[in-house]
């Protein structure tokens, strides 16, 4: 102990202290960060990655750069993980048709193998969220009521309480969630595509994410208990209906009632 205190005024003491501090904070950050980080590219073969790179260079590099480092037209993909690729390419949002307020879903351009190869390549660039396992997507294990609560608190302000979608600023929007697969819903939550925030695993746990998916699938499959749901758009659709169809029918009857034989 004495030796240490004697050297506390050594010219390199400050540097050593700084180094120690950095190592400790960095180490802690790594430990904390890895909680949220699905395991890096595991299970992908070298040939997958190689094929994926070819596909990437041919289809994605124009905007994302030859090494996925990003350009003025597209962000860097290093560290976005396999889940981001699987979501963006698997829902047809990527490759993007054109620059706009946000990438629109459109018919998927690659088959499952190609998507998997692309995912493998991007996952090999840096650790990021992996494609979720079937376990966290199994809605038979989820609780829809708990999921509904999580959904209303975290998702409904953009996606609407009935998941019918909603507008964001300057032409951006949160899409309706009916017909989106369990896997893509999960991937959207962990990767935060377009304007969506990332809901990491300390924010919404994998079990809660499964509950949310269970809730969405249940309200989608149960149909509308009260009759045709008019798009689940709320009072605007109801008001529009009564002012057009409702009053229209009424006016038809009033004209009939007050007409006289001519």
């Amino acid at each position, binding site marked *: 102990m004495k030796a240490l205190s004697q050297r506390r005024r050594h010219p390199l003491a400050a540097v050593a202290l700084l180094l120690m501090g950095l190592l400790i904070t960095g180490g802690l950050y790594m430990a904390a960060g890895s909680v949220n980080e699905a395991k890096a590219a595991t299970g992908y073969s070298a040939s997958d990655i190689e094929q994926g790179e070819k596909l990437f260079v041919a289809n994605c590099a124009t905007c994302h750069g030859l090494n996925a480092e990003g350009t003025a037209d597209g962000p860097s993909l290093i560290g976005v993980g396999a889940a981001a690729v699987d979501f963006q390419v698997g829902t047809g949002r990527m490759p993007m048709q054109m620059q706009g307020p946000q990438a629109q879903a459109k018919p998927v351009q690659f088959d499952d193998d190609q998507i998997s190869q692309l995912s493998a390549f991007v996952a090999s660039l840096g650790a990021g969220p992996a494609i979720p396992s079937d376990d966290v997507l199994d809605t038979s294990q989820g609780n829809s009521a708990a999921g509904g609560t999580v959904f209303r608190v975290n998702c409904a302000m953009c996606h609407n*309480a009935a998941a019918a979608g909603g507008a964001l600023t300057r032409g951006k929007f949160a899409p309706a969630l009916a017909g989106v697969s369990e896997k893509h819903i999960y991937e959207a939550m962990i990767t935060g595509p377009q304007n969506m925030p990332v809901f990491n695993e300390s924010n919404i746990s994998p079990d809660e994410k499964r509950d949310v998916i269970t809730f969405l699938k249940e309200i989608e499959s149960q149909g509308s208990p*009260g009759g045709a749901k008019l798009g689940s758009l709320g009072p605007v659709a109801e008001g529009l209906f009564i002012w057009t169809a*409702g009053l229209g029918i009424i006016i038809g009857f009033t004209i009939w009632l*007050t007409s006289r034989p001519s």
Partner: protein
Amino acid sequence: MSTTTEYTPKTTTGRIANFVDSRVGGSAMVKEFGRKIFPDHWSFMFGEVALYTFVLLLISGTFLTFFFDPTMTHVVYDGSYNPLKGIGMSAAYSSTLDISFDVRGGMFMRQVHHWSAILFVAAVSVHMLRVFFTGAFRKPRELNWVVGGVLLILAMAAGFTGYSLPDDLLSGNGLRIIDGVVKAIPVVGSYISLFLFGGEFPGTAVIGRLYALHIMIVPAIILLMVGIHLFMVVVHKHTQYPGPGRTNDNVVGFPVGPVYAAKAGGFFFIVFGIVAAISGLLTINPVWNYGPYDPSPVSAGTQPDWYIGFVDGALRLMPGMFGNFSFEWLIPFPWGTNTLSLNVLFPALVPAGIMFMIMFTWPWIESWITKDKREHHLLDRPRNAPFRTGMGVAGVISYCVMWAAASSDLIATHFLVSLNDVTYWLRVLFILGPILGFIVARRIALALQRKDREIVLHGRETGIIEMAPEGAFAERHEDLDAYKLHQLVNYEDRKVIPAQPNAAGHISRSEKNRGALSKFFFEDRVAPVTPSELAALKAEHGHGPAEVEGSSSDSIEK
């Protein structure tokens, strides 16, 4: 000592009827009221639609009170709707879910109640538009117009208090906006809010209070107002569109008994049937989608029911900042600094305030400008009062712009445009729309009047081209039949009345303003075809319009 003249019925039914009649005097009432004449026109029936939907509201509402629990007691839901099972919520929301899923016929009754509510307010509004555009509010009906306006406000109040009762997320967001508007009132706002909600929003009292208003106070006042409204309709007699034999002193139509009573009774069941069909087929206010109220979440696409939409729209249109000019001011008072949030207070109160003020005072404004203090029982066709039609259209447009603004998010997503652009354009339309609407509507009305004049003077174009013996081509014009002609020439010709000096020979300032307004409204006008013009036409062509049956006499029942 019985008199010999007393009527003795022969059948059992007759005896019972006579027993009741001789004690209640029903036949005298039927004799008086049953002979009331109501003119027939489809546009006269929206008031009836409003009345019938109100009856439906009373019936379905009574059913709902049997099962609704208007308290905010915390309960854990254990009904049949799985996605909410085990969730903590208020008893109000839980019982609304029970009505929807566990009470037999409850879902249907809830939907009947809500669909008839929004149809009720729509029918009241269309009825008022009809009264406005046809000038039916003129003397002696000004007060009934005001009663109608009060009924519109009451209908909105009934609607909003009902909309808030289920205590779901959507209605809670609506109450939150009300809370925000109340709190924007300077100095006393926060105290009023605390008073309304019985503590800090949302508190535990507001549902019970709204319930008392919704099922008791507001419907009772509506019933009273409906009574006054109908009484005045009977006293004033119904207005009618101009036509041969229809004068300012008579009413042409069917008597209440038996024709009109049968029609009106049947119409009630038609309205009932339409509402029931809509309620059975289309869902309204699916409260189970929204979840229990919790002040933290706000769903996208949160809007009020349509009749409150214009206030919501005004709030959405209002900029919080205008360039560097903020609408939120801090006002130093001796006791501290108070915030004056004009960005909330102004849009929430001013457009609605101006709209209702103009609406209520319009009968007097119009008679002041036109100096017309006569009684009017004949209606105007909207084209024959271009100034009023223009004003009405301007009002409708400003309402509709605010209305559209309340659905700006849905316009953005469904027409694939930017939400910001929708708001900017609606702001522009809010300022320019009413002005353009006034000009365009008045021009269209004047053009239609000119077209009418043309048709009267030259007949209807038949599309038949005739060749004269000398080879000239001409289109044959057909004379109008007498009824049509009567409609096109008999309307009130309003002219500019310049400012008049008073008894002392002065032209007062208000009279000058009146003269200017009169000039603005009536400078452009199309005069109706005069009898002398018609006579000249007749002499020229040798074939004038035929005499109209009954037009010269008041022989029709008054």
